[in-house]
């Protein structure tokens, strides 16, 4: 049985440089990196040293607290460098790829003939497990838990996102195999798949409960989908995983090889050829997209791994993040804006806004906007109300939840529904905030504090 869920609140931000629905294969990168900070909650315990040679699927490090959760190398090669930051925290493990890829053989596993333990241990030893995230807290899942259900959002509604239909083209068998495996890993709640109502390609997928979602961003956020299909209560636990990783999981079980394929949407106003690119997780940005040295208006170019609303700012010679399926190139906004021409007294025809305070709302809906990274104002105390509520499609009071996090009132956070949210759900609130409050950072810190408090 499938049903249609209409999401009314939210907003689509149409940015210039939307990736075309074509996939080109990226030349194999020379250097790949696995970045432990991408996996929230992990305490890194290295298994390799610089100079060691590894295969695709060899363990690079594991979680000190949960040694069974292993993180694998996406390619065969030599460990080039362990990049460390402040307090010797490991930021990245860089691997120089061999010209020939070779794989650790994990062996073929027939999903229909294997039980949960067999599947789970295969997922763990291959290094697929870290791609599972859990709600509450939006951190790497714990293999000792039996999740109530597993949720997959098969579309990304954020600006400049990769199209799942394009990414999974020709991989439906792998995807179905992955779903079958998830069905065995999940508890009584089973597997939930959220589809865009116009999507017909994935409608034939079985062994899961399909819900169609209709509406603007953030209807593609898995947290919003969970809230509208089977809301998370205190004490419950669900896992989430991206659709591309479901297909990778399916492929792992049939081939025995760990290949963290990524179809990445390269876009943004500074991207010369906005399109989808086939590569591997952790590939160097330079192998995926050409980053111009100057933007069209003569500024620096910001490289964002992930969505412009939630991604990480990385350098030109950085690497694709583990959970990212998009790269956005946007102009930096270092120019001060004079009050009459483009600042707060201007008509604002060229400034996309969620409010109607600028006349840009008179522009046609189909217009694509070029937005830079300017803050558009200074940080202030909360003044305006009702703004977050317009783009937060959950039965949760976002401002009050954020305020309870700011004052670290754990009791209120729990009551107001912090277990259901992740920072990405607040991305539009942060985008449209008059007071320029760093909401996503506050929510992340709140989740971390709460997790530490609960032990």
């Amino acid at each position: 049985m499938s049903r249609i869920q209409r999401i009314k609140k939210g907003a689509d931000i149409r940015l210039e440089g939307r990736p075309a629905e074509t996939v080109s294969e990226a030349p194999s990168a020379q250097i790949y990196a696995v970045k432990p900070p991408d996996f929230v909650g992990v305490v890194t315990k290295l298994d390799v040293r610089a100079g060691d040679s590894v295969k695709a699927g060899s363990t690079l490090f594991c979680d000190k607290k949960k040694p069974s959760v292993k993180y694998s190398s996406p390619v065969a090669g030599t460990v080039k460098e362990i990049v460390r930051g402040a307090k010797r925290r490991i930021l990245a493990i860089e691997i120089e790829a061999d010209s020939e890829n070779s794989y650790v053989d994990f062996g073929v596993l027939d999903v229909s003939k294997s039980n949960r333990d067999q599947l789970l241990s295969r997922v763990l030893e291959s290094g697929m497990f870290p791609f599972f995230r859990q709600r509450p807290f939006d951190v790497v899942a714990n293999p000792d838990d039996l999740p109530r259900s597993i949720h997959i959002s098969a579309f990304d509604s954020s600006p400049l996102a990769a199209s799942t239909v394009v990414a999974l083209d020709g991989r439906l068998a792998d995807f179905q195999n992955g779903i079958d495996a998830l069905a065995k890993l999940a508890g009584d709640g089973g597997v939930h798949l959220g589809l865009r109502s116009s999507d017909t390609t994935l409608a034939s997928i079985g062994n899961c409960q399909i819900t169609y979602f209709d509406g603007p961003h953030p209807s593609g956020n898995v947290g919003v989908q969970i809230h509208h299909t089977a809301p998370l209560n205190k004490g419950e636990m669900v896992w989430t995983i991206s659709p591309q990783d479901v297909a990778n999981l399916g492929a792992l079980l049939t081939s025995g090889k760990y290949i963290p394929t990524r179809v990445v949407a390269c876009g943004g106003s500074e991207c010369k050829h906005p399109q989808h690119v086939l590569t591997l997780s952790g590939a160097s940005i330079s192998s995926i997209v050409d980053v111009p040295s100057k933007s069209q208006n003569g500024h620096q170019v910001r490289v964002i791994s992930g969505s412009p609303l939630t991604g990480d700012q990385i350098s030109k010679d950085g690497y694709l993040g583990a959970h990212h399926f998009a790269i956005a190139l946007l102009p930096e906004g270092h120019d001060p804006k004079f009050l009459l021409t483009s600042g707060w007294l201007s008509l604002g025809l060229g400034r996309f806004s969620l409010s109607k305070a600028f006349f840009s709302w008179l522009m046609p809906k189909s217009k694509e906007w070029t937005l830079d990274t300017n803050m558009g104002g200074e940080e202030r105390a909360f003044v305006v109300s009702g703004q977050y509520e317009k783009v937060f499609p959950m039965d949760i009071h976002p401002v009050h939840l954020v305020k309870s996090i700011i004052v670290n009132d754990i009791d209120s956070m729990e009551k107001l529904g912090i277990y259901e949210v992740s920072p990405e759900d607040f991305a539009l609130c942060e985008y449209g905030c008059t007071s320029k409050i760093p909401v996503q950072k506050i929510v992340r810190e709140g989740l971390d504090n709460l997790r530490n408090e609960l032990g």
Partner: protein
Amino acid sequence: MKALHKIISSVKPHFEEGGKLAKFWVVFDSLETFTFTPGHVTNNGSHIRDGIDLKRTMFLVIVALLPALLFGTWNIGDQYFSSIGESADLFEKLMVGAFKVIPLIIVSYGVGLGIEFFFAAKRGHGINEGFLVSGMLIPLVMPVDVPLWMVAVAVAFAVIIGKEVFGGTGMNIVNIALTSRAFLFFAYPKQMSGEIWIHDVAASKGGGMLVDGTTGATALGYLASTVGKVTDTPAVQGVMNMFADGGMFSLHNCLLGTIPGSIGETSVIAILLGAIILIVTGIGSLRIMGSFLVGGLVMGLIFNLLGLNGFMMLDPFHQIVIGGFMFGMVFMATDPVTASTTNTGKLIYGFLGGFFSIMIRVFNPAYPEGVMMAVLFMNVMAPMIDHYVLQANINRRQKRLQNI
């Protein structure tokens, strides 16, 4: 504009730490950010941001206040000339009004922003834009002939006790402009009532220039005089006739605003123009305005049904277009900091605000305007309304847990 930015950048080092004028950093910073939205860029989180900021928001509220301000300025002149029975052209009326209004605005902004600068420098943060609106609202809720020193004292009280002691813009519990108005009302009750609603009305009276029948009282002042009297006495009938068609306070005159009253509150049409600006831009809450209106009408209707005195018998529509009801509804009750912040809460807050406005006005004619008291009262109650709305949300979540 590059040249202007160069000048600003060249003097900036003097104001930075270690510079000669470092004490005045706040002043420099506010002027710099006033002219140029700074080139700050996002770090992580959302890399792109909406262009809207507090400056834009506050500026639009001021734009929405302009119709009421302009009409109020003209009306001062109009009331003055008709009180002494002279005719004057548009320009003369505006001049008389401007002569009264501009000093009020200067005093309000001067005192308020001065205090804001002081506190911002003390606390080491930028100037918040909140007072830009409060500073404009305060003159508009003042009677014409209020002494300037009183305005200065009231603004200082409102900004320091009403706002800064709570932590500045965004932290205050009650509306700043109404706090200043209430301060004057309670601190100087004698000076804040009687012959101050029409410019120079006392002097004109003394000089025998006043047109017969003009007393300078407001609509509410007249109506308050009917309370406690039998409705068919000639005095009460006289008052009620003023509200009939062709009377001084006919529906037509009240909508247009050609009646005595606080500077910005008289013209319903000018205020509604502002309301349209606020609603279209999404800055003023339609929820609050709408429910406030309904609340006022419902109370007016209930009084109609009771009909105990002349005041109660006034048509509900007439009831809400006199006094400060409309101005309070559009510009005071909607203050996002002091109103309820939940969507459901806003409906309750607005309804009760409108309801109590009319109730206080009629039940306690010692307060010539109930809106001020009602909005201040609801400001204090708003957190409690929100508390119950949140509690309902929390209960829903807990119920869901029990149903598993």
